[in-house]
């Protein structure tokens, strides 16, 4: 029976955004029946990974947000899928705001009234396609220590307004040992955190934390460079942060821990469309660009008056009058307060990392955890690069799906290494149903994963594959580096390399396919030989009357259907 989560709750709530998966053309052609969130990664539905991530952190208030059209499919899966039902209590809620459709930007989702009403505390935002092996509690610890302003957390009605908490995001390297062609990257500029006098605890993430000062997807950056023929950098950025490190091959994992005020920020600024590009991008710019925080309305949201910057300073109220302006040439009667303010500001800018903008209030920082590409050598371990780094990947193209599934298949199962040493993504057994595997078959257990109820006939060979539940592999089939979803039937003597086969598809006898993708419910004729093809049905791609008229106007527009 699933059990209840028995660890302390950090008082955060989690939102998992289940989008339509526009980069998955083969498999999400029907986003309502087969939403991207339910595509299997290593035989578990995609949405299991962010859910499990939250539960591991002790977060119990989880809400999945999906368009109303996909709600039914996801609800069914939540109730029937064996992986999803075995997640601990309390169960995740499903919210389908009525104005949400397949094209809504992520920040627009957060602006919807249902979501605004739902979020009442600091919150996490996760995409449904994030596979993150790193412990969420480490990220939470990093957020609690580095971003949260204790004064604002512990303030009560009688205490003066305190500086607000910052946020946390995760960026991971895309140029790892197994790079995937065409993976999206983000362009990010970070500065190091002020050095703290205390050594970071062993095993914590603090050495990899930096503060974000600029964030933009690579595509936008390329457009910008084209427009301006060069990459423009504002002077105020360099004045505020002389040491900037620019990352071009990292990608935003889209995992954010946001304080509550970000919801107000999004609500006030209608122009923000996506979280990654707009919300984070503008927020971090407001940290160093003069006047931007006022334009974005951050002043009111953060409760700062332009004239008062030392609000939380003198609780005893002994002789503190709001200082009119920061310049020391202020009126002589406030000189005593100015001394304290300046020292406070110096202390604050050292210890709280907030942007020391000379013209406005301090904007809380957006911190980044940059996942290292090489695993840190642990003390006393003799293996150096043998252990793979913890996996953080977003899975939003089919190539990534294949890569990540194969990577997860290489994790040793719980049976082999015992429950403590196993990764949280390990399966209990590599071959879940060994009785279905006939003798005289080769299955390389070390890098394959075979799910329940799979029948493998004789003389077949399965190397480095992930095979979903209820599949049938007939005699003589040879599968290398393939990903099979549920219910696939592979005919006799097929040779499949690097293929992705959708649900309930069927491959006829004697096919030789390399680098192919087969949509669900498709039948591939026998003896087909294909390389780098996508087998999709053309239903749903039929042109409507409108489209036909539109095409009649355009010249030479090809139909998008493939077969």
């Amino acid at each position, binding site marked *: 029976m699933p*059990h209840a989560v028995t660890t302390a709750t950090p008082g955060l709530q989690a939102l998992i955004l289940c989008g339509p998966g526009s980069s998955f053309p083969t498999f999400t052609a029907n986003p309502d029946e087969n939403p991207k969130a339910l595509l299997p990664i290593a035989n578990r539905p995609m949405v299991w990974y962010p859910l499990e991530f939250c539960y591991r952190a002790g977060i119990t208030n989880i809400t999945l947000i999906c368009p109303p059209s996909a709600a039914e499919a996801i609800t069914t899966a939540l109730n029937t899928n064996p992986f999803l039902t075995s997640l601990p209590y309390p169960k995740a809620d499903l919210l389908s705001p009525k104005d949400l459709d397949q094209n809504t930007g992520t920040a627009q989702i957060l602006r919807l009234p249902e979501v605004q009403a739902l979020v009442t505390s600091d919150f996490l935002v996760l995409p449904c396609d994030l596979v993150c092996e790193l412990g969420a509690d480490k990220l939470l610890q990093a957020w609690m220590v580095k971003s949260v302003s204790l004064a604002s957390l512990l303030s009560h009605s009688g205490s003066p307004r305190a500086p607000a908490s910052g946020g946390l995001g995760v960026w991971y390297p895309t140029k790892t040992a197994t790079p995937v062609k065409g993976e999206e990257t983000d362009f990010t500029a970070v500065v190091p955190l002020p050095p703290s006098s205390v050594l970071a605890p062993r095993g914590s993430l603090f050495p990899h934390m930096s503060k974000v000062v600029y964030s933009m997807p690579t595509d936008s950056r390329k457009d910008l460079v084209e427009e301006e023929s060069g990459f423009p950098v504002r002077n105020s950025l360099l004045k505020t942060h002389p040491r900037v490190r620019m990352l071009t091959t990292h990608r935003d994992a889209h995992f954010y821990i946001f304080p509550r005020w970000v919801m107000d920020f999004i609500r006030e600024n209608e122009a923000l469309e996506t979280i990654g590009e707009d919300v984070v991008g503008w927020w971090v710019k407001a940290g160093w660009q003069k006047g931007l925080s006022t334009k974005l309305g951050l002043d009111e949201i953060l409760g700062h008056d332009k004239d008062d910057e030392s609000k939380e300073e003198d609780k005893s109220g002994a002789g503190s009058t709001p200082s009119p302006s920061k310049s020391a040439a202020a009126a002589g009667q406030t000189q005593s307060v100015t001394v304290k303010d300046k020292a406070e500001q110096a202390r604050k800018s050292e210890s709280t990392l907030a942007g020391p903008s000379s013209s406005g209030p301090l904007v809380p920082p957006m911190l980044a955890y940059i996942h290292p590409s090489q695993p840190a050598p642990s003390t006393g371990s003799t293996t150096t690069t043998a252990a793979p780094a913890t996996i953080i990947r977003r899975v939003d193209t089919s190539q990534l799906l294949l890569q990540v599934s194969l990577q997860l298949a290489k994790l040793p199962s719980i049976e082999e290494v015992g429950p403590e040493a196993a990764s949280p993504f390990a399966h209990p057994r590599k071959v879940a149903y060994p009785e279905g595997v006939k003798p005289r078959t080769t299955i390389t257990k070390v890098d394959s994963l075979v799910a329940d109820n799979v029948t493998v006939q004789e003389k077949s060979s399965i190397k480095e594959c992930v095979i979903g539940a209820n599949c049938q592999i007939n005699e003589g089939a040879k599968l290398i580096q393939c990903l099979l979803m549920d219910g696939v039937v592979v005919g006799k003597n097929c040779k499949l390399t690097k293929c992705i086969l959708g649900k309930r598809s069927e491959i006829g006898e004697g096919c030789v396919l390399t680098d192919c993708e087969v949509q669900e419910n498709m039948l591939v004729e026998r003896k087909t030989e294909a390389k780098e093809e996508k087998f999709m049905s053309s239903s749903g791609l039929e042109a409507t009357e409108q489209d036909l008229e539109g095409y009649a106007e355009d010249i030479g527009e090809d139909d998008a259907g493939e077969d």
Partner: protein
Amino acid sequence: MATEGTAAPAGAPPAQASDQAATVPPNAPTTSTTEPTQLTGAQLKAKAKAEKAARRAKVKEVKEAVAAAQPAPADAKGGKGKGKDGSQTLGPQGQGKAGLAHRPSMNGRRPSILIVEKDIRSSIPECFSHLPMAKRIHPSHAHKDVHPAVLTVGQQMATFAIKDSIARLEATLLAFRKVIESYETPKGNSLSRHFVPHVLNPQIEYLTECRPMCFSMGNAIRLLKTKVNSFDIDTPEDEATEGLLEMIDLFINERITLAEFVIARNAAKQIQEGDVVLTYGSHRLVEKTLLRAKNNGQSFSVSIIDDPYDRGGQVMATALREVGIRVFYSPNLGGLKTNVERATNVLLGAEAIFANGSLHAAAGTADIAVAATAASKKVVALCETINFDRERVSVDALTYNEIDPEQNSAESFRLLYDTTRDHYITGVITEFETGTGNSPAQAILALLRKQEDPALN
């Protein structure tokens, strides 16, 4: 045994198969010895398979035995292990098998989970086993009743983001304030009976797990518990909650905020024009005093000697420079004699003061005090009365101390505090108004005894 019973189904099919198959080979070898030619290829294969299955079953048994012999760690891992193993085993199997980690949970209240306690301390010799060290548990290992605010405060304390005793005390009290605000007495219980053991104690235990408590936190918690116990069992919950909140607010106001202000004001009077004030590391009282003195219009300079392992002095130096105080900075205790000779006053901040007047302060303070006394300089310590500990006595630095969790090994470890004997301290400034300015620690302790004993009822 429950473990073997529940874990057995996972291993049952192969075990049964191996049993069945195992019965066959014993026969086969016996026949084979008499008639070796009768063993066909299929039988050989069956034998090999059975042996393999038997080996696997044995490995499983060993694992189960090991797990059964250590119910405590598996139980302790319950929170984490259940999340991992439970979902793993149930999912693909699809049957109602319970994994190893499905034990009946929690008999009553169990403390926060400690997983790596032995690993951290294993290198420290026995003779120092009385010295605590921050265990720094992760938020996911905390007991489930820990309030989110307390969780955050604990993490900040564990990672030494808030270090000195007053900051920790203030954060703890404000976090407890949140706990009290969000507390609702369950039906049939009263606050005075239910609150402390079921709500407050898990928070305290968690905070202690993150980092050993400082004296002032202990004092404050004792006062809080006394107040809770003083409520009648019939007191309505609102009244009791109000009373507690009021007490916390008053406490913070009087003994932290006001104390800080008064100490800074009193100590600032002692700084004359042209003084060179020597101080060690960074202490918030010393900083406030120096800023206050600057406010008063004095012009003086400050000599900061820093702890080489914990460079807090640099932050204070920057803050002082912002307001125009001239700062001499020394990164460690080298050249101490020269520094002391140049100084006119010595201001030291303290973590606590023991009952015999000894000063408990950051490691290195004692060196400064001794050197200053040898050079006949006045050594003034600044300490709030909440940090006075009237029950403990210390004459050396090894009785009450804390080991640095980052710098410890079998050969050496770093201690965070040290003890300065009272004859090296010329005077202590607290929030009690004193005419002459300096009072020896004993006088203050006597005053405290008179003040607090009648107040405690």
